[in-house]
């Protein structure tokens, strides 16, 4: 009896959250439709629960799952409204997503965190959420118009285009999770290590496959998967970002040579990253490139951004961008300006770092914003 009453509590809470979300305005109309889908499902839940005063344990569990699905999605929709969404950044990330997916019905949504280090991809919708959604579709014969890709970033850094590039790495986690890429590769590598395959041993320089100091040399498949995943996501980001991403990561992690339980050392990560940037042989990169085409839509890791040679930022001008590769190149150009290019500018070299930071971010945003409006306008006119 109490469980039913508590279910009603959860329904009341969900109703209140949806009611508050009614005033949400999104720049992407697909999100408005998605919210309507959530509202419709909720209405059906309300009616069904109302008509069944004696719910079984399994039914209560089912409805709890449905309500969790609604709440989880609202969490990210709230951060994706007109006034909160990092619109320009999400636009660039959506283009990167389109490079890798056959299914174009994915929309990136953002959750803004108070934690200044909170950059991550939430796999819930691809894991538990996927099963719940299947049940919702089966139960109500209603499907959402799009699927959401849920990423979190610090609210304080939402307009910081220098550090928000970390989200490209997080997008790599989505691609990896969706295709179970490094999960499959971890089995292949783990099995090869078990049989002491020479090639696998070379890769293991980058993947200590058992905890340091451990007497138990049993293959730790999960650790292999986690490490491969981090390398893959770094390389995913490298395609679009250039050196700035790894400079920042190395600084944040203090260039550590220590591995954590889930991350390789930043020194090894930098080695793999730089080998990719400089087109050097690397067993991890080779491993990925061997299996990527068959696992992910014929794709390989490749450079997908232009190097921009310009004095525009130094002259306080936004860049004129004419294609997607140059658009992604804005981030690398912004970093080049921050790290050294400012010295060549009569405007920037006489400004304090805080001012230079503000100017570079502003110009990156303007550059992307101009490209967006111009592209939309030209598409409309054609």
């Amino acid at each position, binding site marked *: 009896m109490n469980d039913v009453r508590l279910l009603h509590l959860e329904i009341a809470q969900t109703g209140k959250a949806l009611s508050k979300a009614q005033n949400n305005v999104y720049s992407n109309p697909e999100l408005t439709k998605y919210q309507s889908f959530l509202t419709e499902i909720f209405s059906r839940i309300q009616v069904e629960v109302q008509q069944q005063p004696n719910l079984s344990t399994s039914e209560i569990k089912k409805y709890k799952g449905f309500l969790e699905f609604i709440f989880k999605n609202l969490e990210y929709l709230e951060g994706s409204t007109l006034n909160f969404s990092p619109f320009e950044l999400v636009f660039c990330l959506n283009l990167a997503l389109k490079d890798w997916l056959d299914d174009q019905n994915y929309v990136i949504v953002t959750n803004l965190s108070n934690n200044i280090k909170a950059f991550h991809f939430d796999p819930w919708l691809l894991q538990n959420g996927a099963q719940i959604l299947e049940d919702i579709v089966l139960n109500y014969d209603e499907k959402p118009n799009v699927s959401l890709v849920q990423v979190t970033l610090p609210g304080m850094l939402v307009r910081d285009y220098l550090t928000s590039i970390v989200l490209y790495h997080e997008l790599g986690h989505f691609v990896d999770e969706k295709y179970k890429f490094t999960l499959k590769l971890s089995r292949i590598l783990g099995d090869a290590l078990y049989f002491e395959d020479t090639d696998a041993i070379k890769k293991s320089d980058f993947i200590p496959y058992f905890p340091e100091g451990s007497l138990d040399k049993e293959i730790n498949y999960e650790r292999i998967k986690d490490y491969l995943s981090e390398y893959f996501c770094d390389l995913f980001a490298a395609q679009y970002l250039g050196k700035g991403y790894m400079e920042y990561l190395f600084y944040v992690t203090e260039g550590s040579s220590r591995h954590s339980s889930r991350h390789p050392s930043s020194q090894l990560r930098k080695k793999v990253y730089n080998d990719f940037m400089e087109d050097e042989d690397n067993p991890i990169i080779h491993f990925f490139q061997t299996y990527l085409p068959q696992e992910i839509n014929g794709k390989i890791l490749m450079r997908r951004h232009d190097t921009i040679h310009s004095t525009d930022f130094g002259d306080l001008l936004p860049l004129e961008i004419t294609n997607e590769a140059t658009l992604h190149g804005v981030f690398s150009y912004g970093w080049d300006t921050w790290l050294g290019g400012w010295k060549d500018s009569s405007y920037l070299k006489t400004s304090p770092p805080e001012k230079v930071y503000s100017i570079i971010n502003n110009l990156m945003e*303007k550059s992307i914003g101009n490209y967006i409006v111009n592209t939309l306008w030209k598409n409309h006119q054609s």
Partner: protein
Amino acid sequence: MFASYSAEHETFTTFERFLEQAIAGNTKYVPYVNRVLDNAHRLCRDRNAILGMDAPTLSIVIYLSETQEAFFNNLNVAQITGEEYQKVLVFLKEKELVFE
């Protein structure tokens, strides 16, 4: 569609209103939109000032940035208010380069 601007401002700016109108089929605003976008690279130098401008002022800014390099390099809207503003406004109206 214009969240990049609307994130800072509750209402659309003049340019965005005209852009929406042009997209909706009101061809009167198409030349204006084209001129702003052709000059976006230069105009966005001082985005906050641009966002606050009405259509006639923005028309004048576009004209001056196209024809007077010195003006462009020291973009200062205050420089074009008052008598100078009226003079340029009349000139541009004759050439049908002002939108309002």
